[in-house]
């Protein structure tokens, strides 16, 4: 069965430092992977997606994600974190026969 795992409940980084939010997946067939961000009391905003092609995907607000098929991972990254990046981040998988399957979410806290 397909699944998405976000192994960290919370990630803490200092402003200006690089950040990584981890995601691993399990799927038979091609994975279509997405990252969304949820700010407090707001809806989910799309950041980026991997469909095929280049393993490094660039998205909104300076975020990027690296797809690694051998490690079945799709980690979200940003070279220099901002305090305003503090939010809840979701990795999601889109597989045939269902809608988005979400990970449990990772809270990113960026300190000034």
């Amino acid at each position, binding site marked *: 069965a397909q699944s998405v795992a976000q192994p960290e409940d919370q990630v803490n980084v200092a402003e200006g430092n690089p950040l990584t939010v981890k995601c691993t997946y399990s799927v038979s067939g091609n994975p279509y992977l997405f990252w969304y961000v949820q700010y407090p009391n707001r*809806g*989910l905003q799309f950041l980026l*997606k991997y*469909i095929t092609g280049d393993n490094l995907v660039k998205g909104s607000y300076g975020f990027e994600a690296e797809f690694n098929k051998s490690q079945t991972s799709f980690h979200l990254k940003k070279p220099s974190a901002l305090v305003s990046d503090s939010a809840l981040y*979701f990795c999601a998988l889109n597989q045939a026969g269902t809608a*988005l399957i979400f990970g449990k*979410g990772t809270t990113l806290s960026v300190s000034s």
Partner: protein
Amino acid sequence: DTAVSQTPKYLVTQMGNDKSIKCEQNLGHDTMYWYKQDSKKFLKIMFSYNNKELIINETVPNRFSPKSPDKAHLNLHINSLELGDSAVYFCASSQDFGGGSTDTQYFGPGTRLTVL
């Protein structure tokens, strides 16, 4: 212009009542969804409609009934509300059917339902 909108934003009601949440998208998409986010922030699909046809119907109590009058609208009606129904309900839309699709789903702002 809001792409995916939901009303109301907040809904507080008593157990046993019946309530509805409305969703509209102006993106011209063919597919709409309802997701539930529980108190632990876990998100799960409830329903999906493609061109007014029910495509996905997850294991949801039959007290929940979606209705799609046209492909731009997907409403969620809940009968006999229970305490456990308290959650945030998100509507979303995509151009194509989400199952196995590469299309991005765009989410509404959510409706926070509190059942007392």
